[in-house]
């Protein structure tokens, strides 16, 4: 098993100066943008993307070409790049922003052309100050060259790009919350319907919201072809993907691979095995929102559909490995605390429920649990995500609340003993 370098090729080959426009151009950079603006019409570009079958890399996995095709007609349309990467375990956008900003800008130019957009925003989480600086430098270089601004590449088209810094709110990774945030509002998810971004997005105008990784893939697809891209990976999960590997592995990092190999293989090959040669107790296949797999499930294939069939999700492509000695109650509590902290507070079940779950887990973890707490935990979960099924049903506007349920159902489903061992034993009293 080895990496297939599409998005990370340039940065690997030019480790010290991949961020400079001259170096990027020396390596075929901006040719996709130049070609498209000179030779193509927008419809052709959208077709190329559709041919690639690339699905959004933000977590939801919606086909990108289809999304572009949905964008409603309007004089005023916007492109917003979602660089609010905050899903625990995920750091793949960070490398793309930091080490190959021009690839993203080129993707933005092509995407904007395809969708007849002249204003794009890159929303980068505030904690990514350094990556944001890199992108801002790169944008300034691109303006100087005439690749951004008025009449780009002498095409008669205009395009302005603004980097907008987030300020510490995971929920802004949700696209409608991100739009609220970009409008200078609280990052609360909007109602869908009626606020589908493609129809009523930024300033209520049709807006394309795409992930950094998705748009960074666009130049390769244009330089090669949608069909070539579709040949990579497997059906339903074409192309390459950058997986972020962390936790108890010897060699954590970002690895760009074609989807389709197993998690076990991935962890062994790139993670170089588990620290201190321990075994895997559990792992998270797709970021903190995803239900966990057990150490005995390492043969599941890393594709969107395989993971879904196994009742979890590939999500943001973040694999977190927990070894045999991990205190899973504390691990679950860490994730629940995360969601409680990041709940926007709009919906009652998420606002109140996630905090309540955190309190109960805290009680259990510190030895103050009650025997009834397991039922209580599960029932509170059920009131956030009825039926505790996968994909989750929701009593909330967005999936943040149900995400807090994932670690608990995982814990209770596969590691119930571990929880029970922290609780007082049930005493059976003979009443007769």
């Amino acid at each position, binding site marked *: 098993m080895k990496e297939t370098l599409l998005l990370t090729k340039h940065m690997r080959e030019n*480790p*010290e*100066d*991949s*961020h400079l426009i001259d170096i990027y151009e020396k390596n075929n950079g901006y040719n996709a943008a130049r070609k498209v603006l000179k030779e193509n019409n927008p419809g052709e570009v959208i077709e190329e993307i559709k041919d690639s079958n690339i699905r959004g890399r933000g977590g939801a996995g919606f086909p990108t070409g289809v999304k572009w095709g949905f964008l409603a007609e309007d004089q005023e349309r916007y492109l917003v790049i979602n660089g609010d*990467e*905050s*899903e*625990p*375990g*995920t*750091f793949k*956008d*960070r*490398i793309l922003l*930091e*080490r190959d900003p021009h690839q993203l800008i080129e993707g933005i130019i092509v995407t904007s052309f395809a969708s007849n957009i002249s204003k794009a925003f890159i929303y980068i*989480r*505030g*904690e990514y*100050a*350094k990556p*944001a*600086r890199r992108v*801002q*430098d790169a944008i300034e270089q691109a303006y100087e060259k005439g690749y951004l601004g008025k009449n780009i590449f002498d095409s008669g088209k205009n395009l302005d790009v*603004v*980097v*907008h*810094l*987030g*300020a*510490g*709110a*995971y929920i802004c990774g949700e696209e409608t919350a991100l739009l609220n945030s*970009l*409008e*200078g509002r*609280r990052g609360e998810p909007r109602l869908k319907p009626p606020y589908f971004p493609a129809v009523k997005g930024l*300033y209520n105008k049709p807006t394309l919201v795409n992930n950094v990784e998705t748009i960074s893939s666009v130049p390769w697809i244009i330089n090669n072809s949608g069909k070539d891209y579709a040949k990579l990976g497997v059906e339903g999960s074409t192309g390459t993907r950058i997986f*972020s*590997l*962390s*936790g*108890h592995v010897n060699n*954590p*990092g*970002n690895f760009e691979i074609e989807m389709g190999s197993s998690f076990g293989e991935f962890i062994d090959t790139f993670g170089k095995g588990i620290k201190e040669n321990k075994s895997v107790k559990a792992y*998270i296949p797709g970021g*903190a929102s995803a239900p966990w797999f057990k150490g005995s499930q390492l043969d599941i294939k890393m594709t969107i559909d395989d993971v879904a069939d196994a009742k979890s999700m590939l999500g943001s492509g*973040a694999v*977190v490995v927990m070894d045999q000695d991990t205190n899973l109650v*504390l*691990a679950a509590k*860490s*994730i629940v*605390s*995360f969601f409680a902290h*990041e709940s*926007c507070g709009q919906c009652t079940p998420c606002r109140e429920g996630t905090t309540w779950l955190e309190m109960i887990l805290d009680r259990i973890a510190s030895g103050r649990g009650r025997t009834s707490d397991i039922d209580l935990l599960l029932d509170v979960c059920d009131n956030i995500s009825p039926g505790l099924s996968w994909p989750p049903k929701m009593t909330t506007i967005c999936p943040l609340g149900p995400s807090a349920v994932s670690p608990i159902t995982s814990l209770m489903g596969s590691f119930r003993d571990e929880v029970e061992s922290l609780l007082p034993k049930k005493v059976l009293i003979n009443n007769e």
Partner: protein
Amino acid sequence: MTWDTKLIEKANEIIELYPQKRSALGPLLYLAQEKEGYIDDDSVVEISKLIGITEVQVRSVASFYTMYKQEPTGQYLLSVCKSISCEINNSRELINNIKEFTGLANNETDEDKTFTFEEVECIGACGGAPAVQVNYETVEGVTPTKALELCKYLKEEVPKVIVADELQEKFGGVKSFDWGIEDNSGTSSTAPGFQIIGTAEEK
């Protein structure tokens, strides 16, 4: 403190970047964060005038986001990640060490305004867990011992500009990925260093 002409000019430049004034609210709040170390009431009033919304609307937005501080901060904001990858890689011990060194509990600032300490959720450095940010400059693979050294360094050397690469070299360990590019940029306030808000600084 009210804003001087220079700052208002800067604010208006930022407002110009957006189709609607209100979008500039976030960056404008960072201007206040840089200037005062937190979002003080006077800045809220200034911002509300600049973008034409009420003071409480500004406060409502500011208080939603954790990076806009509602209390004055110290010169160095120490943010230690406690999310899953860091949690299982012993961020607790690191947190305890910093607490002990600074004498601060979560979200506290010391009296001489040197440190503000906070436990934070995922900062996207999971491969380099446990990770710390100083004024939003990331240091990865920080051991509990190195964390103490980092604090000592800040306290004793009092560097003006915080640069991730420098701290990483001195106090960091395993990284999320090869940082590659040499970088001297950073920030000198508790607002993230970023060109548009004028907080990016070279060492």
